[in-house]
């Protein structure tokens, strides 16, 4: 890939399979529960909502590795743009849960020390596992394992190229 090209979600997209991850898990959970004569009515109700919402969320999620900032734009109804200087990234996190492991997906998580980016979300801890910026995290789920590794290495390279100098803020 050319050096001066800006990497975006087009290069390393959230896979289409990600949209069906939660629905598949819900269906499997209900099938297992049915063996015990039970099911989860609220989860079944959430199923159509997810099937509509997930493609929208995926469609409206954009990130780009600009020269100085990692920029994330997201939001279906309420929009959010997050600008993260590379110098202040605290740690980069790559993880796979069981579903990811089976289907060869991975979640990339980039964290800094700020909480303000998601002040509204701090009470709702579950929001931290969502898509995009919330709290001090930027979550990019449902990447192919290979692209997650490549994206991670690109971000690490950016961190290395943009060290903090004197200022602690990185700006």
């Amino acid at each position: 890939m050319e050096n001066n090209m800006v990497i975006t979600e087009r290069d390393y997209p959230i896979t289409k399979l990600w949209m069906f991850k939660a629905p598949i898990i819900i269906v499997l959970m209900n099938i297992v529960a049915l063996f015990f004569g039970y099911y989860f009515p609220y989860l079944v109700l959430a199923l159509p909502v997810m099937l509509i919402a997930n493609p929208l969320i995926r469609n409206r999620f954009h990130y780009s590795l600009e020269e100085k900032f990692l920029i994330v734009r997201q939001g279906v109804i309420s929009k959010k743009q997050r600008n993260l200087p590379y110098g202040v990234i605290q740690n980069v996190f790559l993880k796979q849960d069981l579903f990811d492991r089976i289907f060869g997906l991975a979640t990339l998580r980039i964290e800094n020390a700020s909480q303000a980016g998601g002040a509204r979300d701090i009470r709702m801890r579950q929001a931290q596992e969502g898509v995009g910026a919330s709290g001090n995290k930027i979550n990019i789920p449902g990447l192919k394992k290979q692209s997650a590794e490549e994206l991670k290495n690109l971000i690490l390279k950016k961190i290395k190229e943009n060290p903090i100098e004197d200022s602690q803020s990185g700006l």
Partner: protein
Amino acid sequence: MKISMSKTREQFPLSEKKIIKKTIKVNLVLDIIVLVIWIIAAVTIGFSGGASVGVLGVTTVAALVFLTLFFLVTYLYQKWYWSVYFYELTDDFIIIKKHPITPTEITIPYERVQDVYVDQDLLDRFFGLYDVHLSSATVSSGIEAHIDGVEKQAADGLRKALLETVQRRISKNRNQNLNTNSVN
């Protein structure tokens, strides 16, 4: 089982005693619970005149078989866990990767390390093991970024290596130091 080696793990090896320690840690609580239930059952049966001693005998054997199997499974899992445990101090980042089934990998730049500390819990003291923790300013790094189960020499070595690198990277003469380092 293939061990995921790195230069750092060769230099500061993960102790094999960690496998035993973690297996015991997982099994200990369960064993105690089963023992307590067994004692209660035995005492109750003793008071009731010993009518169902045969049932107690069969249940005891079943429980022992179950506990042994559970012990073996946890031992194999911990051995697997120990084999895939990966940590490396590269030039710019600290990488720690673990969990055989659901892998997590954390990468921390040296400049962002806030804290390095070494600790031991009760079983660690018994086995002479140490946990080296390091953390950046995030909660998840505190949870994920530690190197568990190294012996004293390796723990001291890791701590020293980490602190030296962090010190060098955050000092005012950073660029100068980096340059002299690259010349060497």
